[in-house]
């Protein structure tokens, strides 16, 4: 990435947090992903599977509090 780890604070401070800005940043990110992995000459399964994998991970994270009760040991 073009932003160094130490500069993340200033970078986040300089972002546009208006509703328009937030929507446009989401749009831009979506377009970047599309143009990099899907609208290419020879895209593979990676473009789609990365989306599915991130969906799986995110849904696990959101349902962790609910699955917590299936743990086999109480103390780790």
């Amino acid at each position, binding site marked *: 990435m073009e932003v160094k780890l130490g500069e993340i604070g200033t970078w986040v401070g300089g972002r546009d947090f208006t509703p328009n800005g937030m929507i446009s940043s989401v749009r831009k990110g979506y377009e970047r992903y599309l143009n990099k992995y899907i609208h290419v000459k020879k895209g593979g399964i*990676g473009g*789609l599977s990365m989306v599915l994998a991130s969906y799986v991970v995110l849904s696990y994270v959101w349902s962790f509090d609910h699955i917590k009760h299936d743990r086999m040991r109480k103390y780790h």
Partner: protein
Amino acid sequence: MLSRVIAVSASGLKSTAPLGAGLVQASRSLHTSSPSLAPVPALPEGGKVRHGILPEEFFQLLYPKTGATGPYMLVTGLSVWLLSKELYIINHETVAALTVGTVFVLGVKKFGPSFASAVDKMEEEKVAWIEEVKDQAMACYADAIEEEKKEQWRVEGRSMLFDAKRNNVSMLLETNYRERLHHANHEVKRRLDYQLALQHLKVRMEKEHMVNWVEKNVVGSITAKQEQESIAKCISDLNVLAKKIQTEATA
């Protein structure tokens, strides 16, 4: 490989989805590069993804510090930690996930290449069709250019055309002039002939009239006495002649 279906359908949807199309065009028409899009640049190669889910940038990020096996060790350590802390809980859903994952991976491995080649062929057909349209249009334009050049060459013969037309017109004028001249000539000759015929007639009539008048006068002037005298003379002449012939006949 499904991404190729998405590509096929997305490129078709791109024209229908207003926002997406607008944004794509906005990103293209900001006049950053040269304004013409011809020839249209080819699609980019695409980001590389290893093992189907990890992008290549992840491996490149860790390569300087940990070498080639770094990311794999990171993934292994991470999964071991998640399992041991039971942040990832193994329950019935794990079995389902493993099953689905296996089916997915096997399906992709088995049907991937054929599906990919089929979609590639569809894309190629589309591109070939569009290229054909473009080629036809270019051929049309090349023909139009040829026609235009021919027309320009024809324009150069314009002067010859005008010369011929000028000749035609002058010939028409000449013909007309001669016709009228002839007509005038004819008319004048007719009038002169009339005058001539009139004079001839006059002279002839005068002559005849005079002859008639002289005859009439002469015949009228022969009185009865003269007539008798002339008849007597004719008889005597005839007697003399008869006698002469009689004497000549007997002699």
